[in-house]
């Protein structure tokens, strides 16, 4: 009997078997290593690509508001939709809260919809926040973080303006610094979709 190769490994990922360099073991190891690299690669691409870009189609989402309504993004086609992500624990969000409400008052009769998405927050504090800043446009929690994941949002506050065609028209990362800045961005989107 020839010398039995004793190199075989008990490790599940490494090539097992009794004969030297078993073929299926080699295949298995390659599948494992390349699979691992693929997972890491895709993970890396995901972590690097950031939020969705202007021109991308916004996926269909449903926002359940604090008032108990269900707002389907698909039903808003044909209107400009301003989606603002915020949270009650987010200090910078407070900078833009009042201005957003003012902008809503300016545009609510001009076919512009404002939606507030409350990112991982607690209801009590969220309602207090809405009351404190007198926000009247529809707001709702981001249940299961599905909406923020769809926008691949990175943090709060962030604001996404969706054009009437259902594609992303403008993005603002971080708080708006003034009412003018909001107005400018909406006007630009309106002009583009005239």
């Amino acid at each position: 009997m020839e010398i039995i190769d004793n190199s075989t490994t008990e490790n599940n990922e490494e090539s097992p078997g009794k004969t030297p360099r078993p073929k299926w073991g080699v295949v298995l190891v390659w599948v494992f290593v390349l699979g691992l690299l693929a997972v890491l690669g895709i993970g890396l691409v995901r972590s690097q690509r950031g939020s969705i870009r202007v021109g991308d189609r916004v996926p269909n989402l449903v926002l359940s508001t604090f008032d108990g309504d269900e707002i389907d993004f698909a039903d808003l086609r044909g209107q400009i939709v301003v989606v603002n992500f915020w949270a009650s624990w987010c200090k910078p969000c407070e900078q833009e809260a009042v201005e957003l409400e003012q902008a809503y008052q300016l545009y609510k009769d001009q076919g512009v919809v404002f939606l507030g998405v409350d990112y991982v927050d607690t209801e009590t504090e969220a309602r207090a926040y809405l009351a404190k800043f007198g926000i009247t446009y529809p707001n709702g929690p981001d249940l299961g973080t599905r909406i923020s994941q769809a926008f691949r949002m990175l943090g709060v506050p962030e604001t996404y303006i969706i054009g009437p065609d259902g594609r992303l028209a403008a993005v603002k990362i971080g708080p708006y610094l003034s009412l003018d800045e909001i107005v400018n961005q909406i006007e630009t989107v309106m002009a583009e979709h005239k």
Partner: protein
Amino acid sequence: MVANIGYYVLVLTFLASLYGAGAAAYGALKRKPEFVESGRYAMLLTWPLLTIASAAIIWLLATGHYEIGFVASVTSNSMPTYLKVTALWGGQEGSLVFWAWLMAAFTSAASLRKWDRDRELLPWFIMVTMITLAFFLSLVVFFENPFARLWLSADGQQVTAMLQPTGAVPLNPPDGRGLNPLLRHPGMIIHPPALYLGFVAYVIPYAFAMAALITRRSDDRWIRITRRWTLVAWIFLSLGLILGGRWAYDVLGWGGYWGWDPVEIAALLPWLAGTAFLHSVMVQEKRGMLKHWNVVLIILTYALVLFGTFLSRSGVLSSVHAFAKSAIGPMFFVFIGVTFIVSLSLLINRWEMLKGENFLTSVFSREALFLLNNFLFMGILAVSFWGVIFPLISELVTGQKITVGPPFYERANGPLGLGLLILMAIAPLSAYASSTWKTIGRALWKPALVSLLVPITLYFGGIHNPTALLGYTAASLVAFVTLYEFWRGVMARRRQHGENLPLALWRLVGRNPRRYGGYIIHLGVVLMAFGIIGIEVYQTETQATLSKGEQVTLGRYVMTYDDIAVFDTNDGRNVARAVVSVYQDGKLVDELYPRKDYYYDSQQAVTIPGTRSTLADDFYVILVGLDPDSQSDATFKVYHNPLVNLIWIGGVVFSIGTIVAVWVISGRRRANKTPSASKSTRT
């Protein structure tokens, strides 16, 4: 000026490492030793060059050159000088340079040996290490440049760049953002370098293994040459992990030392593979078996080092330890991809050349038990690896983020760890090639009988938890067996050589340092096991909001809240510091000062627990919050952590054991050169 010099030195080092790799490989292929020699000089040049570059960064950090992006991001005026200096490894850029510096130091040191009959390995050793070094340097040269300046671009954005972007004006901030406060802790000053040392040192055995594969050397010279390096790498890695635990316990304020965080696990994975290697390599040395497996393990260890570094630095995983999202991810990905694929191809191609020389003669022989030990280590490794990688896979498939947390790891790794403890008790009693269950049984029954007293005593002492009873029994068995082994050895020496006790012990360890160093390490592990079981099974906690003078009770302890002070310090902190008294069984035993430090520069808070530490337990108090209205009512979280100090003591014993093993190996090598020397020590 200094920044420019530093940067050009980095570029020069990068070129030198590229040249070294190329020249060495060319020299080896074309059989031109002068090229190999030139490559070696290039390699030896990298360490002094990187020393200059590191010194430049340290100087910039220490003197507060906030016009440099890296300096502004990790230091501030209020930081003490020693923290400014150690901020070198507080951020991505500096830590990459530090990493490269360590690697250059190790490769240079490893290449300063007499190569004599291993000369053919030299060029490939140079090539592998210099390619790796060149890669890390390319990251700092092209992406994470620690010398890049801050500029205010034409459109008002703050940018970092080496050269002035068009239309930009230099920015010269008066102060920096300061180091992450969590990192401003003595433990954090040693923990990263220790881990890095461990990580980096593994490149040496890896490079030798690759060189052996490339040159088709089928003997195990590479193992003998790198024996000390694998131990050095391993001790630093172990130390890094233990210090990390200590840091978490002292600073993170959650009453624990290990949270199964993905980045923690990423550092544990190479340790597991490296520990398996330390055991299985002995089988190859003694019996000429497991040759393939040892090469696989050393490649696996190094691959896991790279994998862990990639995970923590690329932004793929989010974790408390992760560096901020970074541009180096894709580069790093390509590098680990190439490393994995090349190593694996080479290994498969050379598979046939590594033939074993021996057979397993008994399932109770030490080699068989080492095999079992490796199996369990690989089991823990597979479980932990799976737990880290699964959230990534799951997010790809289901689109939902998930957490794989401590319960998963503890459930799976607990029994495997127990299995390792039991093996640790049996294996030292076995012999290579020849043990049977009878010989082991003969050696085992006395310690086993003694260790059975432990669970019985504990049971009647009120400890009924099966995990604890089982764990303590196994750990005691290891302790008794190990001490018994020392006893047997000492007694044998006394009989044979007529030495007195201390001398016999000294000579026993000196004659076989690796075995007895290993036993000391095992004793360290036993202590740690006692501590881990103690805190994991018997930790208790309570939380309460108290007004001054009120008290909270936890087990035998009562804590009263005496006072609080909120004040600013001159190093830029706002401190809320409570004074509490601790009573044990009604007697005042200690006064503690749990506090919360808020750092103005980085706008972060750190919770520093107040701890009363004894061998038996820790009483650990965290100041959770302070009522903003009254400014005096405070919320405390109180932990009782039994036996936690055994973990740290075990860590010290563990380190001593490794030092014994490393130290005497080097001593032995010297002794080998002069054969008479070893004789004379025995007379």
